[in-house]
């Protein structure tokens, strides 16, 4: 806590108020909006001509839409890790990271739901899930837990914002009329009385406890979309734990990246300190080791037996068509980040950021490898089919929609940081006061 102890409340407030976009910020937003628009155009084409515009066919019937969905659900788990698990474990240093983690979680879960609708052949029949829903189907479980997770995450984002609204409302000239009106609409009822704080604290505590099982559910159920089938590579009892460990890893990687970017963009060096990178770096190593452990289970145990249906699938991954991608995901998604972050020098902000980027990219391709190769190895042989059925590489529409959804998630995070303080002001001030009292 080198320099930060001397900070006064006014200084903290001034530092953490939402700032207008600079030149770089504007370019960044423009790029994201363009990507979203290209994605929207691709989706218009898909609605018009059908899913034929994708390169999914009867054998590879799920493609990057589904792997992207799994990626989004995975990364959204981090909200529960940083906010809930750390809070319940009384980890104090994570306070400046909670809001970053929570907005990543929320935007990811929104786009997870959107991308699953994009994957549907008949999106206009979405309401059938409620009109004719069958509770036996894992898809319905997913609908239930994902919507629950969305609401809990939204509340966990909103409640800690309430004291900040009160502070924000005092800076009308700085924030502008529009935002002032928004803040007043969302938080003017907050007077900051003792009773209100008591209720808010209690609610946050309850939500933190509730969100942990729900978070485990969303990703376990997502893994069951695969594990409840008979297909080689999916038919695994390891899948729930394997998915969850991978989810915490990619989420922690995402937070590390966001920490670095926000710190640079908004000059938050006093708040997101080297200590935070050091600690998050350790977190990522731990989670990467855990995920590696589940990968060993997932691949080496079937590879030891080489049952006939698994054999072709595994050889394709280890040494066949998918080998480059497979080893890339293992190396870049797990091994290299572990190597970097094991050393103290590797846990400085920049190397941690690089390791975080590697984790996220590796994780995206890992999801692709979980979904697609399995579908190319059905239990009965694939014969007399057009060549396009035997391979899968996403069409431009699929790429555009997938990238558009990633850009959309980043856009939500970016705009959120423009409108609200990305580091909780009130909590930071209270913590500083507590520290000063203890001295």
């Amino acid at each position, binding site marked *: 806590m080198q320099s930060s102890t001397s900070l006064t409340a006014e200084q903290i407030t001034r530092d953490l108020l939402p700032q207008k976009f600079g030149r770089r910020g504007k370019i960044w937003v423009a790029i994201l909006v363009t990507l979203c628009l290209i994605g929207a155009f691709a989706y218009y084409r898909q609605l018009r*001509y*059908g*899913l*034929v515009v*994708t390169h*999914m*066919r*009867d*054998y590879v*019937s*799920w493609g990057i839409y589904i792997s992207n969905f799994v990626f989004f659900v995975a990364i959204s788990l981090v909200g529960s890790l940083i906010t809930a698990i750390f809070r319940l474990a009384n980890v104090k240093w994570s306070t400046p990271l909670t809001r970053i983690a929570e907005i990543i979680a929320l935007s990811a879960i929104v786009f997870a739901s959107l991308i699953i609708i994009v*994957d*549907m*052949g*008949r*999106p206009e*029949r*979405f309401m*059938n*899930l409620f*009109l*004719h*829903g*069958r509770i*036996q*189907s*894992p*898809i*319905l479980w997913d*609908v239930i837990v994902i919507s629950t997770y969305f609401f809990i995450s939204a509340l966990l984002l909103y409640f800690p914002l309430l004291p900040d609204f009160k502070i924000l409302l005092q800076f009308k000239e700085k924030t502008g009329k529009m935002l002032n009106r928004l803040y007043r609409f969302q938080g003017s009822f907050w007077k900051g009385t003792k009773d209100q704080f008591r209720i808010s604290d209690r609610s946050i505590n309850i939500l933190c406890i509730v969100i942990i099982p729900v978070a485990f559910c969303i990703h376990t159920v997502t893994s069951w*979309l*695969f594990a*409840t*089938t*008979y*297909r080689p590579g999916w038919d695994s009892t390891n899948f729930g734990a394997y998915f969850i460990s991978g989810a915490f890893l990619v989420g922690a990687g995402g937070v590390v990246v966001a920490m670095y970017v926000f710190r640079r963009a908004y000059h938050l060096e006093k708040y997101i300190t080297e200590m935070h990178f050091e600690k998050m770096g350790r977190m990522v190593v731990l989670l990467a080791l855990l995920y590696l452990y589940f990968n060993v289970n997932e691949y080496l145990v079937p590879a030891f037996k080489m049952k006939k249906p698994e054999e072709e699938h595994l050889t394709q991954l280890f040494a066949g068509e998918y080998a480059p991608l497979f080893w890339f995901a293992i190396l870049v998604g797990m091994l290299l980040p572990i190597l970097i972050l094991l050393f103290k020098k590797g846990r400085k902000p920049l190397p941690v950021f690089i390791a975080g980027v590697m984790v996220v990219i590796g994780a995206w391709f890992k999801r692709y490898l979980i979904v697609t190769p399995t*579908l190319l190895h*059905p*239990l*009965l*042989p*694939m*014969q*007399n*089919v*057009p060549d396009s059925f035997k391979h899968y590489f996403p069409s431009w529409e699929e790429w555009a929609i997938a990238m558009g959804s990633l850009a959309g998630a980043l856009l939500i995070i970016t705009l959120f940081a423009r409108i609200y303080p990305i580091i909780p002001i009130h909590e930071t001030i209270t913590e500083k006061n507590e520290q000063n009292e203890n001295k």
Partner: protein
Amino acid sequence: MTENNNKSRREFLLSGLLATAAVAGCTDKNNPFSTEENVALSGEKVKLLSVNGEVIEIDKAFLKPIPDLPHLSNSEERTGIPGKKFVMVIDLSRCKNLRKCQSACNHMHEVHPGQNWIKVLSMQDGEHTAPYWQPTTCMHCDEPPCVKVCPVDATFKREDGIVLIDANRCIGCRFCMAACPYSTRVFNWEEPVLTKEVEEQPYSCESSMPQKKGTVGKCDFCPDMTRQGKLPHCVSACPNGVFMFGDMNEDSVTNGAETFRFSDLIRDKAGYRLMEDLGTKPRVYYLPPVNRNFPYESGLENSDDKKVKS
């Protein structure tokens, strides 16, 4: 009524027979031969069998095609044909990869070009084991993995054993395609190519027609045919009698030319089902490729993948 003109001669006579039966039940007051109808006699006589068993002769002009079977409600289509338990036996010793089953099925259901509901696979179980041809339909499992995972009850198991799809309800999530271990399901990736006639007919789960964009399709055991007392298209199209279709409650299966007692056939020829270990309990049984009618090689000329691979 172009549709009715296309009906086969057999059907035409059958309908005439039913019309006569109706005539025989009429009283004088409600005489169908009354001048009201103003039937122009053609002078051509047709011999028919009355309900009393007498051969009668009437003018051909009185023969009227009766309309198709009454339209079934969705819940009737979901319940199935009462008292039936449909079953299929596929005799691998008779198959030479002619693929008449496939082309008849594709034609009758207007399956999208390039897709098939029936696949004839070239199988070889082990390195030194004999290759054989295996026609694969939907297995109509008693424990259907596809039905288990469907979130909206669009694919369902009927009391008569048939697994069907309601394309009016399907949301196109394709979970059933991932769940089916027999890879039997296909998806309408684009607007289906249909004849005008089919396009205009109302959708029925039993005929699976007209197919719809963005929904899943598969072999349906042709319940629209069985309702009329006819065999599924693949069964009647196969010149080698590979497919035998019937009712487990009656313990009989037929390929049109021969009829067997189902339990005897399965016992004597050691019938089996595909992937028994998965517990899906298929309703399609296979008879092993022993004492074959044709050598395996004779089927190769029809194969697109000339190279044999299992």
